């Protein structure tokens, strides 16, 4: 049963994607092509979402599907453990909501076939990535998600910014993919198997040096995929994608893949010297830097992108201090409220046709429904009780207080205040500030399909924390290697409310809010800190670093161009000589 459900969760979106594409062929000339494509995409993604939800009931730590793929590729296996089924459900359910939202958002688009194909292909691949029990096929699914992300960032491919953003995302996440591939090949070389369970069971027997290489390689892979410092620069530029895609791929699912592998392989890598400290540092630095950049960004989607980096940083930090459960709960609540915020932002952008927050405001963004759901999402992001974000963030901070260095905890705590501050700045600028731009056409509130997608997410942002207890029991029963205690929701909530860390964090959140309300009285401070604001607006120099690397690579390519003589003779001799060199090297190695 679980096997069938897994195949449905992965296969249905893929089949649906191909059908949507075929339905768009001009030769078929359906009477209402766009409507047919919309219905196909919604039906297939929604059924996959239902299948993934049913799959949660069949979670187990055993391999349920094993497809032999030949001697060199190992078996394609699927393990529906607690973490996997839950992330697959997040991908498929939020995926189907994003597809529903797209009906309105992509109305009038000339090529809905291409769009839906890549979105549906992504949903299936994401489910495959988290359910796969084989490192090699995990890598394959990982790359498919990167490819879909690239195709969707560059979806408006006549816009040079979109094309550049797509290529940037592709290159940076490829760097991470190499780390994952290296890990799969290492595992095969040492254990003769690609299976994750074999790897987790035997990793302790590896010598220290290869294990450290693997651990840090995987950290780089996770940081690239989850947009953590210093690989975070692709995520803000990925905001050129259509907004439902930003919500699905760049907030709720794909960027979580890095957190997933970190948490999944934590038991194997935790003993590696300095690994946990590095994870903590990467997480906390991302939290603080991204929050500061979100404070000064003026583009609504970029603010949300920076806040995604920052919240993902909390999850990485939680893994580093051993709070696997805290990281997964925060991942869950973040996926819901950030998808809500992005889709809400999409509705605003769709209505006002601008992404600049300076051009929004009270009289322009007069969208009652969107305002309500957006504010629910924002409250969850700021960590206001009793929304989802409050409980999960407190869990992370509690884990940080009980383990890990004190400076990291203090920085994470400080960033909680920053989060509250930039969240309220964003809400204020979008919905309440005085409009500086006048426009003649009245904005329209979210149409039906958008509301259909936004309402369940808003409900989720209010209630997902109630699932924390069953979630902990699911994780602890199906993932024996991870340090997770089964608890009930009531126990978790009581322990959060009793912890002094919670009240400290609430105090910091209140301070962050007060800082925004009293910003006119704090001008002496903001003037002092203007250098920091300028630096943050410039991306803390990481953009310069990126540009420098790109220039260097281009320069090196230009210098190497003299090797291209254009003479066929030289090319052929080079080919033959290279072949002979490889043969000679092999002969030397073997004999």
């Amino acid at each position, binding site marked *: 049963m679980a096997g069938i459900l897994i195949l449905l969760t992965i296969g249905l979106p893929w089949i649906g994607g191909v059908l949507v594409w075929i339905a768009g062929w001009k030769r078929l000339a359906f009477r209402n092509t766009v409507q047919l494509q919309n219905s196909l995409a919604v039906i297939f993604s929604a059924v996959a979402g239902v299948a993934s939800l049913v799959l949660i009931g069949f979670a187990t730590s055993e391999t349920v599907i094993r497809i032999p793929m030949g001697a060199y590729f190992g078996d394609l296996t699927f393990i529906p453990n607690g973490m996997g089924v839950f992330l697959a459900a997040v991908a498929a359910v939020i995926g189907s909501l994003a597809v529903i939202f797209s009906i309105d958002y992509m109305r009038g688009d000339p090529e809905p076939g291409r769009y839906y194909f890549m979105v549906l292909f992504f949903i299936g691949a994401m489910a495959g990535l988290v359910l796969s029990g084989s490192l090699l096929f995990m890598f394959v699914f990982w790359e498919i998600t990167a490819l879909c992300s690239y195709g969707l960032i560059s979806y408006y491919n006549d816009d040079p910014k979109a094309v550049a953003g797509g290529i940037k995302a592709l290159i940076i996440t490829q760097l991470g993919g190499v780390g994952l591939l290296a890990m799969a090949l290492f595992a095969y070389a040492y254990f003769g198997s690609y299976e994750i369970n074999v790897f987790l069971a035997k990793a302790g027997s590896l010598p220290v040096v290869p294990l450290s290489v693997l651990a840090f390689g995987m950290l780089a892979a996770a940081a690239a995929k989850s947009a953590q410092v210093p690989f975070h620069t692709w995520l803000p530029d990925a905001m050129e994608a259509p907004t439902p895609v930003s919500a699905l791929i760049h907030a709720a699912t794909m960027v979580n893949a890095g957190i997933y592998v970190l948490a999944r392989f934590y038991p194997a890598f935790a003993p590696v010297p300095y690994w946990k400290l590095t994870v903590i540092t990467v997480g906390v630095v991302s939290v603080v830097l991204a929050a500061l950049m979100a404070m000064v960004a003026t583009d609504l989607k970029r603010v949300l992108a920076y806040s995604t980096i920052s919240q993902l940083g909390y999850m990485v930090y939680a893994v580093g201090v051993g709070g696997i459960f805290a990281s997964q709960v925060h991942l869950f609540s973040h996926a819901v409220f950030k998808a809500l915020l992005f889709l809400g932002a999409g509705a605003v952008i769709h209505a006002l046709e601008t992404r600049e927050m300076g051009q929004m405001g009270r009289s322009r963004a007069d969208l009652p429904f969107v305002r309500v759901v957006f504010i629910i999402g924002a409250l969850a992001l700021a960590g206001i009780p009793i929304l989802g974000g409050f409980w999960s963030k407190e869990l992370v901070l509690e884990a940080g207080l009980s383990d890990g260095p004190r400076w990291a905890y203090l920085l994470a705590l400080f960033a909680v205040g920053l989060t509250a501050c930039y969240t309220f700045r964003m809400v204020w600028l979008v919905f309440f500030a005085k409009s500086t731009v006048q426009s003649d056409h009245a904005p329209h509130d979210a149409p039906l399909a958008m509301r259909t997608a936004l309402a369940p997410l808003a409900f989720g942002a209010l209630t997902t924390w109630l699932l924390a207890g069953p979630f902990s029991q699911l994780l602890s029963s199906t993932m024996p290697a991870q340090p997770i205690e089964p608890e009930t929701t009531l126990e978790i909530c009581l322990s959060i409310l009793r912890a002094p860390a919670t009240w400290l964090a609430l105090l910091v959140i209140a301070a962050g809010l007060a800082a925004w309300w009293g910003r006119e009285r704090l001008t002496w401070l903001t003037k002092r800190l203007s250098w920091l604001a300028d630096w943050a607006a410039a991306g803390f120099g990481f953009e310069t670093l990126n540009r420098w690397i790109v220039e260097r690579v281009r320069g090196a390519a230009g210098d190497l161009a003299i090797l291209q003589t254009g003479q066929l003779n030289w090319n052929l*001799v080079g080919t033959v000589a290279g072949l002979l060199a490889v043969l000679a090297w092999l002969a030397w190695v073997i004999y």
Partner: protein
Amino acid sequence: MMALSPMNITMLGVVGLLGVGLYGLLATRNLIKMVAVLQILVKAAVIALVLAGRVSGRINLSQSLAATVIVADTVVAVIGLALAVRVRQRFGSLDLKDLSSLKG
């Protein structure tokens, strides 16, 4: 002085064909001659395969590999000649010096 056993004669043949082929690769300026030179190189490889099968005692394997190489090589030759025809139609010349539009 090396004894002129059949094995050594074959070996010398392989090395000689390789030498002719490599020299030809560098010296030829005509596209059709280039295809012929590649054929010489591949023939050296085929003989080397058969020889290796004889030495290792797995003559069946080496013969089937040699047959495969001959088939693949025929395809290469056909495509190479077809390209030469197109090049002649397009550039009006078969001289490799005139075909350096890939120069970096």
